[in-house]
């Protein structure tokens, strides 16, 4: 079992390096999932909703930490509670559009820092991008993951990718990224939304 990182400083340090991501995410889950889940389940959600929202909370938190937008003005716990509530109210709003819940949402929205609010509000566009990337197919995702997430040397990729040499791997990467670029080009609204989010996050 992976050891739990108990202090906020240790967690933040781990979140900033992808190689410690596993340990950091597991620590967040062990320390905060149960309590965040209670909020969702006490507010018309179920266990599955709580798990989905928690994943969003973690992803958003990692993004904010990496962008330096978590300034440590409050504890990680308080910050995650705020994200959890905001993401769930956003989801309720999307699901029901009920006036009462809209009011609650607007009220809660005002209480969240504008920086965080902007990141969360891009979730829908990000979700669409996720669906777009799924269209690339497994072989493309595998190559792009090796290049852009795992940051592996090309020669190491040959040990698990079904390609003859490094040049073939590189060619595959070009084709795949180009394909993604074309998909985004075909959906200018989505590309524009994504650009706005990413520009904001840079």
């Amino acid at each position, binding site marked *: *079992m992976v050891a739990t990182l108990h202090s906020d400083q240790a967690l933040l340090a781990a979140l900033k390096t*992808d190689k410690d*991501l*596993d340990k950091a*995410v*597991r620590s967040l*889950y*062990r320390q905060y999932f149960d309590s965040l889940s209670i909020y969702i389940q006490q507010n018309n959600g179920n266990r599955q909703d709580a*798990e989905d929202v*928690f*994943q969003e909370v*973690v*992803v958003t938190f*990692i*993004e904010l930490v990496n962008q330096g937008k978590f300034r440590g003005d409050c504890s990680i716990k308080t910050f995650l509670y705020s994200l959890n509530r905001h993401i769930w109210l956003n989801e309720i709003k999307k699901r029901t559009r009920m006036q009462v819940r809209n009011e609650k949402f607007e009220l809660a929205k005002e209480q969240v820092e504008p920086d965080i609010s902007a990141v969360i509000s891009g979730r829908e566009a*990000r979700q669409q*991008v*996720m669906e*777009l*990337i799924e269209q690339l197919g497994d072989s493309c995702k595998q190559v*792009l*993951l090796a*290049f*852009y*997430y795992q940051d592996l040397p090309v020669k190491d990729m040959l040990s698990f990718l079904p390609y003859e040499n490094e040049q073939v791997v590189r060619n595959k*990467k*070009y084709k795949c*990224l*180009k394909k*993604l*670029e074309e998909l*985004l*080009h075909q959906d200018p609204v989505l*590309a524009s939304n*994504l*650009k706005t989010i*990413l520009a904001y996050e840079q």
Partner: protein
Amino acid sequence: MSNEITSELLIQYLDNELDAVERASVETALAADQDLQNLLERLKLAKLAFSQYARREAVAGILSDEKKESAPVVKINRMRSVLRIAAVLLVLLVIGGIVQYSLLDAQRLYSAQYKQYTLGTTRAAESASPLERAYRNHNFGDVIAIYEKNDSLSNTDHFLAGQAYLQTGNATRAIVAFENQININGVLPFKPYQDDAEYYLALSYLKLGEVSTALELFEKINQQPQHAYSKEVGTWFLTRLRWLSKKEKN
């Protein structure tokens, strides 16, 4: 768009795979070509989008693994809680048992089990025997006096006399009276108060402190579901009676 600069070259530029000369060449082309700049922006966007996708997938995978790994822990923790509660209950049960065992005696058990017998109203008062009338009036001393003076007694008289003896604390005489009634019933096709007599006979032995005999009689009653007192002789009562029997033998 510049003819010399391909998407592939732009991606290499983006990924820092070009040497200084090549980079300078791309940057010159970019400066002069808006379409090329737009393409570079879209490629950059695609790359950033993929990085986000990758992180999201990684987090989803880690959380999925963590849920699987922590689930048995939760189950074990729940099991531990259940076992802890069970252990506490067991300890309380044992303590309760010890207390019950130490406080157990025949008189206590008899008092808990004994209920005064009440005659039904099946007969008119004038047709009832003097003994029965005395019993109905709760004159147990008169019942005993009539019983002891009279030689011609019915099985009902024996039964009521047994009840009167028990009521006045004379278990020895109650046993004799109940046994008389049961013996008479033995030769009758219709056996009045048979189940009642068996039950109160057992109670009389308990009152007298003859626990083994009482236990034997109560167990017989308990083993007959059709017996009028089978439900009165419950498992908990029999258990305590068995404890008492063992306690007295030790």
